[in-house]
């Protein structure tokens, strides 16, 4: 999801709230991205949608609704994935607010905004405000790409999805969810072979539901339903309207403070727990040393395009501040040299005799890993004239 004046955001549970708050706070130019269409089950809390809207894109319907209701605001919807758009698109915004429901999408927008930062261009630094909720819990945070702790820095802190051991699913299911997971993880591939399970295909969900129901009967487990099947397969945690409202309010406050400088903005992470009363804790999440997105910003390295890759590696090894011994190097489009395993080493060895200018363009980023480096290193290799 997106905001312009430019904020930009999604249009789901959090998105509806954020869009409403932004419009009522006086933002006049907002863009919203969302790849979902409206489902009947959204109507209870995604208040910008009506029964007649079922099946239509959330972004479009939300934009129209808020524009009808709030005079003077322009909302531009985009129905699609955030990944459809590149840096040129994100460059038009002043900041980005996201209420995404997937780790993958969050990692993507985070990495994209970090990459966009160009020290020569003030406009390229786009604050990212990220909100998320899970039942009665939620968090909001402000990320200043390259300056403060990013999403990737705290990835290890995320509680992974509580998984049940495979053998429990296979032999001693105890809960309805175990039967559903058994159907999707073990039974689907067994019966369907290579056919990919599509979580959005009602026929596929029905198939899983029926299999799970049979299995539940066999183990005397009750409670398997179609909507539960959908929830387990899509990993949906029940959304609580008030949690969404609280987190969205926090995100919008931060957007307002950043844009208007009326008050200092959050530094930089707020967690909210509503399961036992109301508890919030705001703290500064620190940048992680060696974060693969923001901790290893590419440094410029001057080289001659006439050097062979081998020569380049030897010179890197001589640099006392790098300390590499057995490096592996790659660019976004190709492997330059792999120090192992044997098959990849054989394949990339001929590159050692090639000239840098035949392997990469000047300014291209080379990512280096080495057993001696706990993290990775990124160099923008710039050819000297």
């Amino acid at each position, binding site marked *: 999801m997106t905001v312009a004046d430019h904020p930009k955001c999604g249009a789901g549970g959090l998105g509806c709230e954020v869009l409403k708050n932004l419009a009522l706070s006086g933002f006049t130019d907002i863009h919203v991205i969302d790849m979902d269409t409206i489902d009947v089950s959204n109507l209870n809390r995604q208040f910008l949608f009506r029964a007649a809207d079922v099946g239509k894109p959330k972004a479009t319907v939300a934009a129209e609704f808020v524009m009808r209701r709030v005079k003077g605001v322009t909302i531009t919807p985009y129905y699609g994935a955030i990944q459809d758009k590149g840096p040129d698109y994100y460059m038009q915004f*002043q900041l980005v607010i996201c209420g995404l429901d997937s*780790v*993958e999408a969050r*990692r993507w927008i985070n*990495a994209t905004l970090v*990459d966009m*930062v*160009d*020290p*020569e261009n*003030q406009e390229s*630094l786009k*604050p990212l405000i990220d909100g998320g909720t899970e039942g009665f819990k939620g968090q909001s945070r402000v990320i*200043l790409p*390259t*300056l403060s702790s990013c999403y*990737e820095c705290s*990835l*290890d802190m*995320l509680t*992974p999805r509580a*998984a*049940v*051991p*495979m*053998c429990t699913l*296979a*032999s001693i299911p105890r809960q309805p969810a175990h039967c559903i997971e058994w159907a999707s*993880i*073990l039974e689907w*591939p067994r019966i369907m072979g290579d056919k990919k399970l599509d979580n959005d295909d009602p026929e596929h969900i029905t198939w899983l539901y029926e299999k799970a129901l049979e299995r539940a009967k066999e183990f005397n487990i009750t409670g398997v339903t179609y909507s539960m099947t959908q929830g387990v397969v899509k990993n949906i945690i029940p959304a609580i309207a008030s949690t969404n409202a609280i987190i969205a309010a926090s995100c919008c406050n931060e957007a307002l403070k*950043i*844009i208007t*400088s009326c008050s200092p903005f959050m530094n930089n992470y707020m967690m909210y727990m509503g399961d036992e009363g109301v508890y919030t804790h705001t703290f500064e999440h620190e940048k992680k040393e060696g974060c*693969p*997105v923001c901790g290893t*910003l590419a*440094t*410029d390295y001057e080289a001659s395009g006439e050097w062979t890759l081998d020569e380049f590696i030897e010179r890197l090894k001589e640099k006392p501040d790098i300390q590499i011994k057995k490096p*592996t190097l*790659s660019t*976004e*489009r190709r*492997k330059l040299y*792999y*120090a*192992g*395993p044997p*098959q*990849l080493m054989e*394949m990339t060895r001929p590159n050692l005799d090639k000239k840098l200018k035949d392997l990469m*363009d000047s*300014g*291209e*980023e080379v*990512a280096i*890993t080495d057993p001696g480096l706990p993290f*990775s290193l990124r160099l*923008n290799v*710039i050819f000297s004239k």
Partner: protein
Amino acid sequence: MLKIWSMKQQQAASNAEGGPKKKKVTAAQLRAQKDITELALPSTMRTNFPDPEDILNFTLTIEPDEGMYKGGSFNFTFAINQNFPHEPPKVKCTQKIYHPNIDLEGNVCLNILREDWKPVLNLNAVIVGLQFLFLEPNPSDPLNKEAAEDLRLTRENFKRNVKSSMQGGYIKNVQFDKVLK
């Protein structure tokens, strides 16, 4: 907004960076690169990349030199997605083998592939875990219930069944793949 930029300028003064913006290697890809090139494989294991351009999909062959599965050659596919290392790699055995922790479809019951996966773990830990499954099959985490029961009841009988399964024999009307090297 201006204040944020002055923070950036202070940082830039102490930090040389910049240059034209080019596409970067993704965090998942970079972590996979590090894990794969730093695998410490003993002589009983080797990797194969069917498409060497794609490091996110490969196979691992394990040839145990001790234990009940000695003499066999076992193949596993590894599939790493863009959520790595937040999510574990997906690992499957490509052969039908008689093992209490591996079912007939090739699913593997190994805690670090599911409930105990953490981003700080690496591919080497997974590979060590797989190797261990062949040295110490574990009847208390059954994925193939018959095999687990067999192992629990009489170790000797289980051993015989493992031998015959590895030769492509039948156990309780199920034919297993010949996996002798």
